[in-house]
């Protein structure tokens, strides 16, 4: 990076930046392990849930996937459902980024890092969701390009592995860089992160598109085999992501002294309003095509919405999702949603849960019911699957809590590079 005057002028500063990095990490560890009793309680709770999940997973690896309720008819279940949602959340994380950089919304800049942190946590959750779905996690190395055998570019799953890991690296870089610069009290060098921010915007679209391609590329599963799937995924991600960020911001504002104007949240709500409307419109058009033509392809949708052959395991799920999505949308369109109201929180929760069901249980499971040979075999997650999935969510929240706590600490100058340290003083 010799092209910028700042960097060229001060190679010494760069060296110092590297030198003081261990100190930064050490202090970050301090932040991570210090807090109020509420913080300790919260972290203990999340750890306990994650432990239960880890134990359930270990048992699953030992005894086989028989401890899940998946079968050869419904061969993916709650794990992959949760995976799909988490990828959406990760993609939605960059929603803060788009207005901040594409439209140069200055006020958003400070908060962008929160969105990136959400993306990092969500990617970790999606990756874990896939790992626990593997029958042979010990053979994980077969997936590593170079050592294993990577069926790229044919397999959509390899694309997904690439884009998810790439996205994780990009976001870790942006978060880490911005945070560290703030810690050092220096102005971030745009050359070091703005290109990555734009990359992450494109990349966010790609992770959810590729995840949609995972499903819609399968000709044998008519319920998924629709070109509308990727746009629908994106639209719903643009709702769940910002809604989740709104919740995080609220928690941050209540537990730290961090203050900001209501503008960024309002921008997010505008995004949600548009995205949710598009999402519902696309859902309606999908349903019209399915039910009006009434072809055999509607069998899965019929099962999903109304049940068939006396089997109706998903009916309650999907109508709950639709109700929550509609209520959430209506709430978001209330003027009160633009203020810091409880109504906004309720709207966010409705949309998050609604989309979690719609993109998860409501999308992944009906792809298998009826089966490719039209057998209606139902699926409801087993206790093990719930434990593991909840464990993953808890672990993701744990990571997010730590990240956000660190961000807030740096932002509020609770930790920073000690004055005078640097060239001479070795840290830790």
């Amino acid at each position, binding site marked *: 990076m010799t092209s910028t005057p700042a960097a060229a002028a001060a190679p010494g500063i760069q060296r110092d930046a590297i030198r003081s990095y261990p100190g930064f990490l050490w202090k970050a560890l301090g932040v991570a392990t210090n807090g109020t009793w509420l913080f300790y309680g919260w972290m203990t709770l999340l750890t306990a849930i994650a432990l239960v999940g880890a134990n359930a997973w270990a048992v699953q690896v030992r005894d086989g996937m028989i401890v899940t*309720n998946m*079968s*050869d*008819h*419904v061969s993916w279940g709650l794990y992959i459902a949760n995976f799909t949602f988490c990828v959406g959340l990760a993609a939605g994380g960059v929603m803060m980024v788009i207005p901040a950089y594409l439209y140069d919304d200055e006020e958003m800049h400070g908060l962008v890092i929160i969105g990136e942190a959400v993306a990092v946590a969500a990617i970790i959750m999606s990756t874990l969701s896939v790992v626990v779905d593997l029958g042979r996690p010990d053979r994980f190395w077969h997936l590593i390009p170079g050592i294993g055998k990577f069926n790229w570019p044919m397999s959509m799953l390899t694309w997904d592995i690439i884009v998810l890991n790439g996205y994780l690296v990009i976001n870790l870089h942006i978060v880490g860089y911005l945070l560290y610069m703030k810690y050092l009290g220096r102005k971030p060098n745009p050359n070091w992160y703005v290109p990555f921010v734009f990359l992450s915007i494109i990349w966010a679209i790609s992770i959810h598109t590729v995840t949609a391609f995972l499903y819609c590329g399968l000709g044998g599963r008519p319920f998924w085999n629709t070109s509308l799937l990727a746009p629908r995924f994106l639209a719903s991600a643009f709702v769940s992501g910002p809604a989740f960020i709104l919740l995080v911001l609220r928690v941050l504002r209540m537990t730290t002294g961090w203050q900001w104007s209501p503008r960024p949240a309002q921008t997010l709500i505008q995004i949600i309003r548009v995205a949710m409307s598009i999402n519902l419109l696309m859902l309606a058009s999908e349903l019209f095509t399915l039910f009006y033509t009434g072809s055999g392809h509607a069998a899965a949708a019929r099962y999903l919405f109304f049940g*068939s*052959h*006396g*089997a109706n395991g998903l009916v309650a799920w999907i109508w709950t999702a639709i109700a929550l999505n509609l209520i959430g949308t209506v709430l978001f369109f209330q003027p009160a949603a633009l203020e810091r109201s409880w109504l906004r929180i309720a709207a966010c929760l409705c949309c998050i849960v609604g989309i979690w069901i719609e993109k998860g249980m409501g999308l992944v499971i009906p792809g298998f019911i*009826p*089966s490719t040979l*039209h*057998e*209606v*075999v*139902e*699926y409801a997650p087993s206790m093990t699957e719930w434990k593991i999935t909840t464990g993953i969510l808890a672990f993701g929240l744990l990571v997010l809590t730590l990240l956000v706590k660190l961000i807030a600490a740096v932002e509020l100058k609770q930790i920073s590079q000690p004055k005078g340290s640097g060239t001479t003083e070795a840290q830790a």
Partner: protein
Amino acid sequence: MDRESHTNSGPFLLVLAVLLVLQGCSEPIDNSVESVAANSTLEPLFATVIREPPVPHGVRAVAPNGEEVSLQCNACHSVRAHNLKSASAVDLDEFHQGMHYQHGSLTCVSCHQPDDGYSSLRLADGTSIAFFESIQLCGQCHGPQLRDYEHGAHGGMTGYWDLTRGGRERNHCLHCHDAHKPAYADFQPVAPPRDRFAPANHHAESSEAFHATSGLGDSHHE
């Protein structure tokens, strides 16, 4: 016909290449056999053997000295008058009692040869053939089935698809079809799969209703 007749039969087998069986057939069938039998490779082919069908070699009776004997058909039929019109099992007596006959409107002598005391079968042109060779006899009416049989598309078999590596054993018509009542009798199938989560869509009842109203009977889709 320079192919080797490989004989690896057990005692329960009657060794006979399909080819040999079919050599007695009428001309057109013979031609089609040629085309099937010709193999693109020049390697010698192993034989295809037809399993001996479950047919009696006579009827069992008790001799005056109390010994059990097996009687040939002509033991009685060579001395009795032939009833050439008989087409039903009900007016048969002695050894034929209890026989079920349900095979169109054929008379006994449509298939059985009265000229040698019913000890052989009779083709439509009057030629006598051995009981074992009944495949030709059946094929007189059931041409498509015989054609499919010759082309390996009807009738169970075991052994090698690649006749340059090993031979084949084939079922006889009579393994599945009782000559007197050839319709395949229904029976209990092998147990269904034990799925952990059973499919919800069983159509046992609705199908009956459909069948009653559709009037499709036994005709096939194509």
